[in-house]
């Protein structure tokens, strides 16, 4: 495995602003910092730091308004490595921060006191690689059960039976215990703990939030995840590149096409393959339809969370039409596996253009109804305005994405800022954002995004020129040794794919940066001081998909 950061071009040929950043990073204590070819690797700057210098370098990045995008572990054999991915949401380089530890001690300092969003990433790395993060505020397992005695993503792990001990009492939450003690000291006697989930109508999947409440007021809460963990990242290492595609559908059951696209894009970047123009247009139409469908599900379920049942049925009626298109195009309503490496799997059916443009017209009318009947409803405004405010700083610290990020006033959209499809540059559309940061802002952004998606679809339909729908690609192919990253904009935010390739036909390590992960993590910051009903409102406005988080 390459232990040195890859540097493809000499430093002198790199853009000067990165050079300046690299200099500053080195000054802050980075042991190595070099520019990387973005087009090939999807990264701009590669930084190696020692555990001692980690905080200083991270603080520098924070002061430069970098957002935390992801954290992941890689087993470099024999050493273990932790990578933190950063991106200033706007123009600016993608930076990866690498820090190593040896296999036996496997201890690193936590970064969660600089970037709060690393909390969950570090806990997951602890589960998967057995790296202990010192001074971590919540040192308990995130994904795996607490009695798991192995670390599945280490390369020397080849499967082991899970031994469930007789006494499976959970590791108590540290801050829960503290909260109880504090409550007793303050003479508080009305507080109790409320398990919101794992079976609950409004957690949108199997999520459990342990709420500390006093009457109806929420004092705090912690998310418990992992109920639908399927080990997708480990499975990826056992599959050939092309075989992994169907797994990408199953990460997020609301926007499988956006996941297909992201994965296809990653492989295209790694193999240097370009898809055909017709395929690109079809991809865009299908992915935007997927976004519309996903946002419609959000609208319906969010109102269901707020107690209005009727909009849900209307939204599902509309979504049903989209799923019918998916079925006619790909043969599958939800698990499409349609966007593949090099293009799309098959061409669309003859009436596709006509039917889609009719749907776009129909949906525009429906949206007007939703807007006036639902979004402008007084009770809806009361339940969403001023509730669950996410500040810009919080958004960057936790690396939230999609409408949650744009609802906090940061108009970053990977479709515009890092276009992974040329059509996004050519077509006429804009990135919606709203500076208010509350549940209403997020709702507002999503509603407008449906309109923008419809605009995109309508224009892309006219760009649908004749031609092949798939470039010539090898049946079984190998990715050259190296590290690749690609981002696409899903309905919930940036879907990032970090691939470590070792030159074989299987990924060495594939990390999926899922948007809901960051979006849900911020919930723990938002709920103290709110009402139980607000927790539901906030959770709904973040539009999380739990299987996506658990993978």
């Amino acid at each position: 495995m390459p232990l040195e950061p890859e540097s493809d071009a000499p430093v002198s040929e790199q853009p000067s602003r990165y050079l300046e950043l690299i200099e500053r990073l080195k000054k802050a204590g980075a042991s190595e910092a070099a520019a990387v070819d973005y087009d090939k690797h999807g990264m701009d700057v590669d930084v190696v730091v020692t555990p001692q210098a980690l905080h200083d370098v991270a603080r520098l990045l924070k002061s430069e308004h970098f957002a935390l995008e992801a954290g992941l572990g890689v087993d470099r054999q024999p050493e273990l490595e932790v990578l933190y991915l950063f991106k200033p949401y706007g123009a600016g380089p993608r930076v990866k921060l690498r820090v190593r530890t040896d296999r036996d001690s496997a201890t690193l300092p936590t970064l969660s006191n600089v970037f709060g969003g690393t909390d969950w990433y570090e806990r997951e790395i602890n589960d998967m690689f057995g790296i202990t993060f010192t001074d971590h505020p919540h040192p308990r397992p995130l994904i795996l059960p607490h009695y798991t005695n192995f670390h599945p993503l280490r390369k020397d792990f080849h499967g082991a039976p899970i031994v469930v001990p007789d006494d499976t009492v959970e590791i108590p939450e540290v801050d829960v215990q503290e909260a109880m003690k504090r409550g007793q000291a303050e003479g508080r006697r009305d507080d109790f703990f409320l398990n919101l989930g794992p079976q609950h109508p409004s957690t949108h999947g199997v999520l459990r939030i342990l709420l500390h409440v006093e009457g109806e007021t929420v004092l705090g809460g912690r998310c418990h995840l992992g109920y639908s963990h399927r080990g997708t990242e480990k499975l990826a290492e056992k599959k050939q590149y092309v075989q992994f595609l169907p797994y990408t559908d199953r990460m997020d059951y609301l926007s499988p096409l956006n996941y297909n696209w992201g994965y296809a894009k990653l492989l295209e970047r790694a193999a240097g393959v370009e898809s055909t123009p017709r395929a690109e247009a079809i991809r865009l139409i299908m992915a935007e339809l997927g976004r519309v469908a996903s946002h419609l599900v959000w609208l319906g379920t969010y109102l269901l969370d707020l107690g209005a049942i009727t909009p849900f049925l209307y939204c599902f009626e509309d979504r049903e039409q989209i799923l019918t298109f998916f079925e006619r195009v790909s043969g599958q309503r939800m698990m499409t596996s349609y966007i593949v490496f090099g293009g799309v799997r098959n061409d669309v059916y003859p009436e596709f253009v006509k039917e889609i443009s009719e749907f776009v017209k129909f949906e525009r009318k429906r949206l007007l109804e939703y807007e006036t009947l639902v979004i402008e409803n007084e009770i809806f405004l009361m339940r969403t305005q001023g509730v669950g405010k996410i500040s810009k700083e919080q958004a960057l610290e936790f690396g939230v994405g999609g409408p949650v990020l744009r609802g906090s006033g940061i108009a970053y959209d990977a479709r515009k800022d890092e276009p992974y499809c040329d059509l996004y540059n050519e077509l006429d559309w804009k990135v919606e954002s709203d500076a208010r940061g509350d549940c209403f802002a997020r709702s507002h952004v999503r509603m407008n995004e449906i309109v923008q998606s419809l605009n995109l679809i309508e224009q892309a339909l006219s760009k649908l020129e004749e031609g092949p729908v798939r470039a010539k690609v090898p049946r079984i192919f190998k990715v050259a040794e190296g590290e690749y990253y690609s981002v696409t904009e899903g309905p919930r935010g940036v879907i990032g794919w970090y691939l470590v390739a070792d030159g074989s036909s299987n990924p060495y390590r594939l990390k999926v940066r899922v948007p809901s992960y960051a979006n849900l993590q911020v919930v723990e910051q938002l709920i103290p001081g709110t009402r139980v009903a607000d927790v539901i409102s906030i959770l709904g406005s973040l539009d999380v998909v739990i299987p996506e988080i658990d993978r």
Partner: protein
Amino acid sequence: MSLPEILLRLVLAFGIVVTFVALNALFLVWLERKVSAVIQNRMGPMEVGPIGLLQTMADALKLLGKEMITPTSVDRIAFLLAPIIAFLPAPLLVAAIPIAEGVGASDLNVGAIYLFAIANIAFLGILMAGWSSNNKYSLLGAMRAVAQNVSYEIPMLLAVLTVILMAGSLKLSDVVAAQSPVPFIVFQPIAFVIYLICGVAESNRTPFDLPEAESELVAGYHTEFTGMRFALFFLAEYTQVFVLSAIITLFFLGGWNGPFLPGWLWFFLKTYVMIFIVMWLRWTYPRLRSDQLMNFNWRVLLPLAILNLLISTVLYRGGL
């Protein structure tokens, strides 16, 4: 009246009232499902009986046959009594409602007071249900229910008081008689709106369905109840809707007064139109939050109701 006559009358009245309560609830559940279906572009129940009319009958039979589970950690006595106490007011209320001139189980001379006094027994049942279930969601639901009902009771009674002021009697038939040419809704539109809002809040329906807010509290106070015990809560809720609409009809819409049609038909017509409006509300609006609900009551409804009562008093007793 001799003793056997009184007894016969009692048994007959009781039988009729309980049958009416049960049948009416079954019909209302069917109606609610149909109304929601129409609002939501669906068909609703269609399989059992003509246009699904017997569907709720089948559901009720199914509920009767279900096992009644008593969780081990509940407070048994309160848990077993709660559904009965919650249901108890339903027949008692229906019994006191006259449906036409001289038709009704009993027309009390303190009818109005009786109705509001008895209606509140149901909340004792709800509180018992929430407390005894030993479930945090149930408890939260019960707390919400009691807080909500106690607060909304006040503007509700103030609104009714204006009507009683105009009628000059607590007897329901007198109240109806006082609206002979013009129903009170014309003179008291504000009281009518206040009463409607409070009534919907009292019957725990959207947008005030906080006690059983499905998306927050799973099923609120009746989470732990199964089978017929659950059905009793259900019966009570729908009877409450009927009583709410009947009271509106009697106090604001002129009761059985109306041209051409017989009185009882007018009464039921007006009542079911009100029931439809209440259902319409439920399938249209989202839910309020508990503190917003309270704020709305104490800051808007209560001052408005007091003001309305004051102005009415001045106008009607001031000789205008």
